[in-house]
């Protein structure tokens, strides 16, 4: 299943040095333990700075979007095996 969406999620992060690494993602009633952060990329929307985290566990890929202005996390892409 490969889906693009825009759902609010709760994300627990770990700071290793200055790097932000998602550890747990709570989406609906389910919590996912993140195992790998495969790519982090940024983008600018006008004055806003957005960060995207491409993360995965054993069976799911998730792309998370962090709006640094509102500090809001969104799940914007899911790929499940």
């Amino acid at each position, binding site marked *: 299943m*490969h889906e*693009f*969406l825009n759902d609010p999620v709760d994300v627990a992060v770990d700071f290793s040095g200055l790097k932000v690494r998602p550890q747990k993602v709570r989406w609906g009633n389910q919590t996912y333990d993140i195992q790998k952060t*495969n*790519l982090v*990329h940024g983008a600018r929307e*006008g004055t806003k700075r957005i960060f995207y985290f*491409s993360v995965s566990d054993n069976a799911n890929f998730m792309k998370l979007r962090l709006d640094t202005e509102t500090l809001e996390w969104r799940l914007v892409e899911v790929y499940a095996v």
Partner: protein
Amino acid sequence: MRSEKIILHIDFNSFFASVEQQANPFLRGKAIAVAGKGKEAIDVHSIEKKGARVRVDNLPYMRSVITTASREAKAQGIKTAMATWEARRILPSLLIIPGDPRKYSEITSRMMTILRSYADAVEQFSADEAFADITCASGGDYLGATLLGERIRADIKRECGAYCTASIGISNNRLLSKLASESFKPNGFTVVPPEDALAFTASRPLQDFCGIGPRIVKRLESLGVTSIETLRSFPLSRLTHEFKSYGQFLFDAAHGRGSDLVSDDVRDPKSVGHSYTFPSNLLSHAEVRKNLLFLADRVASRMRKHGFASTHLTAYVRYEDFSGTGATKKFKEPICDGLEILENALKLLSPTIEVDRGIRLLGVTASGLTKLQGSFPLLHKESQTRKALRSLDKITARYGSGTWQRASTLSTEFKERVSGWHYDHEA
């Protein structure tokens, strides 16, 4: 001391597809293709904005074109620019992924940052390719150049991820370094010192040379030229008779000669330009106008963002066979409005443009930049335009580009870059 330059060419392998595989480990080792622009293309960014839900695993994608195929897909016959329906017919299990320009441009800029940290000058050639002049950085010899190339490769692996592999070529000009990097994929590293140039070029097929397209190959074949060796022994006078000034290029290419100029765009703030390579050739004046307007608006808004207006405008076109034309015009009054840039660009191109030859690339460059004056133009209409532009620029600065669009381009849906656009979502 050598007086010759040392030029490095770097090219990501299956770029968009590799970045997708880097981001999503479940795509690794699989035949995937990144879908290009087209009526059905999915704009990842606009889904985010609208908050819609789109399942992409069983979309038909009948009319779209493939921008990049993964190495696994290529091994099964999937090619760049292939129609999606055709690719699906060849390989029904092919996974088609919507393009995500923000991801790709991040990797591109990481590559550029790495190159800039080492090289004397760096020129981005496309989304996944760049030339670097490493003459001084390498100490001027091929041992130094080889070590430097290896260091760049290690940095790319660390900064971009192990899946984003690149091929590197090093030689004494652009033509040879690109030919070298393309001779070994993926993850190649090919060094061609000048003394090997003749043997190396002779070992490569004609169509592998940058600037020798399929049409040129056909024309050469009709003259009995089927390889670099036969091209080399073909009289220059006959080449120039047949191909005009392009004949000299062909003659030089056959001898491994070419430009070694790497123009560092970062150190050249004297112009603002945008060009676009179309996924499929343009064949009508209406399409040319629409796309030129889009380019003109981008150029204009970037100029105004930095507080400039321009006194010189260049418009150019490149055809399918890489030949092309262009012209430059000088203005008394500096201009900074996209519509004005469009009208002038059209005037510049109209005497020479041959739409039915198939347009591969359009470009607009504004140069002779002067500080934009705050004073109001005398004509009422101009002052209205200036006010409107100022408000639109504020909107762009706050919310990003793509927030507004001219009514005349509404029938074309412009999507965030999938291939070709440079810098266009940096607003």
